[in-house]
């Protein structure tokens, strides 16, 4: 259920939209407004309660049989049915996002041009409220040539071959992947079906060392795309639990690693409990932290980090 401001905003646009389109289909209007038919019907139930003038009398006479929408007194509402200018938030939301996507390395030139043309027209139409959008900017990191290759593979439904770097194992592996979609959240990723692991995998484009388009057709099984709204890393409940204690200099760990708990320690540090499908990757974290933190549990993981440090020191003659 949307809040009152958003519903009001939508209903004001609906009035304009419906006046221009007598007999509009409920399904078409719902699609154009990005709402469910039930939400649209909810709006249509409110509109006839709205007067068009402080002098009283005329209410908006809009009704629906559930399939089409009719407006019986459109002549009464010239001033209330004109298209409305954009608010500062609205112009900012579209312009900042459009500029960010247009800057994405590897985007098709035709898409980039369409975005830039749309931006220019929006800036004109928005007028002075467009100015605030200059104070916000977003960068998506992407590898242009890798992006372009993946984009082509998805469009042409072809399989990809790649050499991919796994930081957890510090190794490159060769994989064949049936790509499903590209998404960008800070970095840019390709989600696809990995033929090596026969499972769904997400690959970060800047970790692709080499990529080639194969002639084989891409044939990923039908899977629900991952829900990105909950963050990229979604530890499962049965992943092993790791406890890391950090000093003040290691507090950044809580910002970078999704965790279950972060308890304050008396020295200004944190005791962080997290779950990960691959605790070995945290060996790297322990080595990076140095005196700023250590792995408390599981003990085997703490020992691995210690052994790695001892082996490294041996090369320096210690």
């Amino acid at each position, binding site marked *: 259920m949307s809040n009152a401001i958003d519903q009001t*905003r939508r209903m004001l646009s609906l009035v304009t939209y419906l006046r221009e389109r007598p007999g509009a289909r409920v399904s078409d209007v719902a699609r154009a407004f990005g709402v469910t038919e039930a939400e649209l019907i909810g709006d249509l139930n409110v509109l006839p309660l709205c007067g068009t003038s*402080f002098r009283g009398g005329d209410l908006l006479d809009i009704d629906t049989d559930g399939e089409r929408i009719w407006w019986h007194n459109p002549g009464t509402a010239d001033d209330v049915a004109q298209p409305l200018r954009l608010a500062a938030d609205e112009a900012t939301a579209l312009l900042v996002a459009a500029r960010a996507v247009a800057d994405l390395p590897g985007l098709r030139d035709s898409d980039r041009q369409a975005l830039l043309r749309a931006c220019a027209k929006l800036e004109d139409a928005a007028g002075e409220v467009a100015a605030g959008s200059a*104070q916000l900017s977003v960068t998506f990191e992407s590898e242009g040539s890798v992006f372009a290759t993946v984009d082509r593979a998805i469009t042409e439904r072809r399989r990809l071959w790649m050499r991919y770097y796994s930081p957890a194992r510090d190794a490159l592996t060769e994989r064949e992947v049936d790509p499903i979609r590209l998404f960008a959240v800070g970095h840019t990723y390709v989600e696809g079906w990995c033929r090596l692991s026969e499972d769904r995998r997400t690959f970060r484009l800047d970790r692709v060392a080499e990529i080639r388009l194969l002639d084989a057709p891409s044939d990923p099984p039908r899977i629900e795309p991952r829900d990105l709204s909950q963050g990229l890393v979604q530890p499962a409940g049965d992943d092993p639990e790791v406890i890391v204690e950090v000093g003040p200099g290691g507090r950044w760990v809580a910002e970078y690693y999704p965790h279950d708990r972060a308890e304050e320690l008396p020295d200004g540090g944190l005791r962080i409990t997290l779950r990960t499908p691959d605790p070995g990757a945290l060996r790297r974290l322990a080595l990076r932290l140095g005196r700023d933190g250590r792995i408390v549990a599981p003990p085997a993981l703490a020992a691995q980090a210690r052994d*790695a*440090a001892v082996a490294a020191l041996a090369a320096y003659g210690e």
Partner: protein
Amino acid sequence: MAIAKAERLMNLALCLMNTRRPVSKRELRASIEAYHEVTSDEAFNRMFERDKDDLRELGLVIDTVESLDGEYGYLARSDRNRLPDIALDPEEAAALGLVAKVWQQARLAEAASGALQKLRAAGVPYEDPSGVLEPRIPAPEPAFEPLMLATRERRAVAFDYRKASAARPEPRVVEPWALECWRGHWYLAGYDRDRGAVRVFRLSRITGRVRTARGAFTAPVPDHVDVRETVARWAGEGVTSVTARIRLRRDSGYPLRARAVTTTPVDADWDELEVPYGHGLDAWLAEFGPDVLVLAPEELRADVLDRLRAVAKG
């Protein structure tokens, strides 16, 4: 049952839009049914002010006019509220359909849908956003929205900020200039009044509420603020001409190899690399444990050794 707020706002908007002369608060109170439910003048005045603010937030320009007898009247003039003609071709319309779904921050996500609704009402065609790309801009930091508004309105702000390695937050008073999202994290650039200098803040390190601070901006706002360059330098990714020499075990450390200036094989197991030496390189090299040996400079070697010794002690 009380009349829903959306119905009240809608009635107020329509009354203000469909008049050629300013309408007084008294007239509005008399004609809008929802206001009849409010009996005290004080409660009505509060509600009316909030309603006007809400309508302004969604873009309605409401003029306030004082009449000869000192009473205030309000109207939303149609010439000031009409969207200028905008004609988008199908590619442009599809492009906007895609970007309207990018925001994951509630206020801007709703604003983007609202903008698209206004544009569609104005005749912009509905196009299925084609393409295979799904960009997303998250902004889960609670400080994002108040800072966005303060930046737009050029209001100084006060907040508690915990520096990366500090145990406790410290109060800051900042004139906010720009917000930038890089690698999924939001940063604020602005003038720090107590330090008398430009500073960059990571929003996730702001603790507690963002409050409005007194006084107009005291420092000139630059035309261009490069937040990313500052942050990238801290991440050790700025342009640097200084390099370090390391030994790296064959087949390991691909990202180091990708950035190396030179790579020379030493023997069957090891390569020697020259890599850019920026902030944070010591921590990164320590991650590779026994697969990296730092040769020079001495200071970097000492930093890596320090980390390794701490871990070896357990």
